């Protein structure tokens, strides 16, 4: 069950960016921090990145993705960050209200004093790079294939061609080879490698998987399942070089053609996006243009080392906590004024306690009914009377006032709520 309606900091996404933000938000003094994850467990994309190479900078250790994730998740949980799993954030308003949907908790609205967006990236798709041909099964982004192979335990292909020399594609080339598939070719449209050269060596060269630069796919063949792809060489303007076509039989095409920050929610919250990064405009505290909404990790721009994602998360979490605390302190300065017995309404509705230190505050009200006899107009905090005033009568048509004086400050400062009652004397 959700512990509260309003949180100091809410983090959306429990990948490395989100977890780091939650950790640092707590350490920086946020009272309550909630992290929301749409999947069945914490960790985000790292859970399916079972290869090594994570943590070399920050932890001085060469860890697989899940191990890196777990290290920080354990720290986060030890700080008593609240966790919601299997929960999708459906909407965020600029006023920092979040609408959440899950089987377990239903459809609920919560409020945050500060939000850290850490939704990561999605993968570029076939349609976005416009490969003509049929739309058979067997065309997957490398990440989707990775989830099947590493987490759910299924092989989505036997004879594979990979388009794009991004890291995920090269990693999957090795992974699929380990699990008994045959990776026929990796094609890269640019004249240079898209990912890290370490992966070229350890994923492609080690396993004799050919990489063809300046190549792309002209057409996909196969109606129900991929049967072949037609590879072709391109010139520096990406035009097809006639006569270089090669039909490569295969049953699976993996796409590793780029990551795009996932900012659906950010848009809903009114966050402005940089068209070049596809992520939010942020300042050095990782705050977006919407006050109180911060962003960290791949959702801002695509990182190549997860260690720097965690660093960004720490920074954003710290800033978010600072913002939340300032907001909470500002809220705490206010005391609400409540219309009590025989009072229809009171203006102002709330007052800043610190004002009373220097000046008087006049309260104005109207009564619900005429009382044609002497009355007391009393201001109290539920237990103690703070001040009162006598009136000979009260009528709805005549406004009633009472003044809170500076000498009342000490009493008002202790109270969380003031009620004004009018009773016959």
């Amino acid at each position, binding site marked *: 069950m959700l512990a509260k309606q309003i949180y100091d900091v809410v983090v959306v996404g429990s990948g490395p960016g989100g977890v780091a933000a939650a950790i640092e938000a707590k350490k920086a003094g946020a009272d309550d921090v909630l992290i929301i994850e*749409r999947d069945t467990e914490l960790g985000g994309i790292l859970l399916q990145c079972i290869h090594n190479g994570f943590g070399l900078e920050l932890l001085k250790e060469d860890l697989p993705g899940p191990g890196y994730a777990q290290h920080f998740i354990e720290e986060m949980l030890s700080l008593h960050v609240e966790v919601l799993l*299997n929960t*999708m954030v*459906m*909407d965020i308003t600029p006023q920092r209200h979040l*609408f959440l*949907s*899950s*089987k*377990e*908790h*239903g*459809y*609920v*609205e919560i409020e945050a004093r500060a939000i850290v967006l850490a939704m990561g990236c*999605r*993968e570029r*798709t*076939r*349609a*976005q790079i*416009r490969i*003509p*041909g*049929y*739309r*058979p*099964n067997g065309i*997957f*982004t490398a*990440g*989707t294939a990775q*989830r*099947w*192979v590493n987490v*759910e*335990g*299924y*092989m*989505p*292909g*036997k004879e594979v061609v990979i388009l794009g020399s991004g890291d995920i594609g090269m990693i999957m080339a090795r992974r699929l080879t380990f*699990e008994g598939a045959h990776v026929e070719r990796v094609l890269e449209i640019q004249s240079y490698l898209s990912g890290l050269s370490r992966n070229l060596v350890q994923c492609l060269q080690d396993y004799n998987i050919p990489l063809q630069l300046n190549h792309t796919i*002209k*057409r*996909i063949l196969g*109606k*129900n*399942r991929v049967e072949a792809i037609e590879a072709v060489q391109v010139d520096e303007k990406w035009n097809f070089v006639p006569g270089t076509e090669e039909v490569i039989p295969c049953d699976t095409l993996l796409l590793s053609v780029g990551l*795009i920050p996932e900012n*659906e929610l950010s*848009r809903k919250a009114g966050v402005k996006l940089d068209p070049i990064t596809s992520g939010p405009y942020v300042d050095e505290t990782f705050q977006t243009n919407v006050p109180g909404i911060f962003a960290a990790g791949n959702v801002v721009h695509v990182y190549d080392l997860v260690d720097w994602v965690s660093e960004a998360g720490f920074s954003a979490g710290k800033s978010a906590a600072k913002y939340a605390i300032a907001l909470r302190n500002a809220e705490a300065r206010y005391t609400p004024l409540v219309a009590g017995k025989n009072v229809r309404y009171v203006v102002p509705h709330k007052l800043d306690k610190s004002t009373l230190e220097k000046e008087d505050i006049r309260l104005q009200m109207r009564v619900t009914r005429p009382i044609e006899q002497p009355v007391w107009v009393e201001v109290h905090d539920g237990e103690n009377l703070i001040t009162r005033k006598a009136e000979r009568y009260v009528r709805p048509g005549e406004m009633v006032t009472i003044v809170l004086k500076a000498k009342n400050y000490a009493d008002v400062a202790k109270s969380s709520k003031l009620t004004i009652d009018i009773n016959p004397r």
Partner: protein
Amino acid sequence: MQEKYDYIIIGGGVVGCMLARWLSRYEGKVLLIEKEADVGMGCSSANTAIVHAGYDPLPGSLKARMNVKGNAMWDTLAGELNFAFERRGDYVVAIGDDELPLVHKLMDQGKQNGVPGMLMIDGPEMRAREKHINPETSGALWASTGGICDPFQVTVAAGENAVMNGAKLLLNTAFQDFIMEGKRIIGVRTNRGDFLGRWVINSAGIYSDEVMHKAGVRPEFIIKPRKGEYYIFDRADVSIDNVLFPVPSHKGKGILVTTTLHENTIAGPNGTIIDDKEDTSTTKEGLAEVADGALKLVPSLNLRYSIANFVGLRPMGNGPCKTPGVVYNNDYIIEIPEEVQGLVNLGGIESPGLTSAPAIAEEVVDMLRDAGEKFVAKKDWDPIRPGRPRFRNMSHKDRQLLVEMDPRFGQVICRCENITEGEIIAEIHAPIPARTYDAIKRRTWLGTGRCQGGFDMTRVVTILSRELGISPLEVTKRGTGSEYLFRQTKQVEG
């Protein structure tokens, strides 16, 4: 023991499903056979989703009559079958002064066809109505009775209503031949057995010519597939709120830029005549042609906001128009042929086929009645096919109530389009069950957003496997032969 039907319908596209729906209103056993794993997998789910006003078909043609009659039936139908439909109205836009006379001609043609609610507007008015229109526009025809729908929803809704009213639907059942007694058709032979019926109705779409030839009917009638390619755009980056037609040419109505009821703008189709009836591939040249046409109407359209492409094959037939004095060789065939008994023959139902579908169904019932069929209305016929909740269209308050009622609606599976597990399960167990990924996609619009299934694919495979009681290895995209997974890694259980 062979089951004997009164009406056997070949082909479960929008026309076949409408026919089933109309016939299931009356006493009599209706069988609808469809060769694919789902209804509407041909042209019916791959078109521009327009309910045409009716100014385009040649006056006097059967196309024109069916179009205008059909158009008027959509409000009632949408209400009864609960599918998405809106009379948005459409524009035929002239770019440059040269095109204006053609638009006037369409207006005249519309009047001849009996199309109500048309108006000519000038260039400044067109620019005011659509701020992204090519500024060179010299004016347009505004047809207020034009509409947009979800054509697949229409198809499945009609089919479900037919099934709910007693019609039988057999998927994965392909027509092979007629069973004849002399000159009388008494049934059909399929890959899943023989079925006997008093009447067989040919609504086989792109294969309708091959079906009728099996009965020796109209050997000269040939269907040529006319391929239309489309772009779908990201709704956050491209929002054209109108239905924009160019001036038509000999090739057809032309390349539109139009809004859809999913709020995605689409552009297309071109019209390339091909030979292969199974060739639904997109082509570089075709997509370039669509891009050119689209940019002519909306020069600011940016192709980089395209998130998907698709292809529809229209069944273009060479049927002659039967109206005396009208010379036209691309008309619909809707007839009871004389050469054989027991056949209702439909052929060449291309655009405006979707619009005409309910009118065609009614026409067929009338024709059968004229041929002596006694139609007795079923006492318990229910015209209503209830709608199912669409989480994405609901307010926060309504979503809360829905999730309280059934928590499975709280589990969001498709992030981009906000489709929930509850909806997916409802479609898997609907009167026409969705048993493949694409079937769920057509019904719910899942997987059609920016990530194109990147997040939902693995989860939908798991849900289908669980709900259908099959192994994940058996889950397919569009029927047998399109499985996702080959084997388990390391032979795991579970």
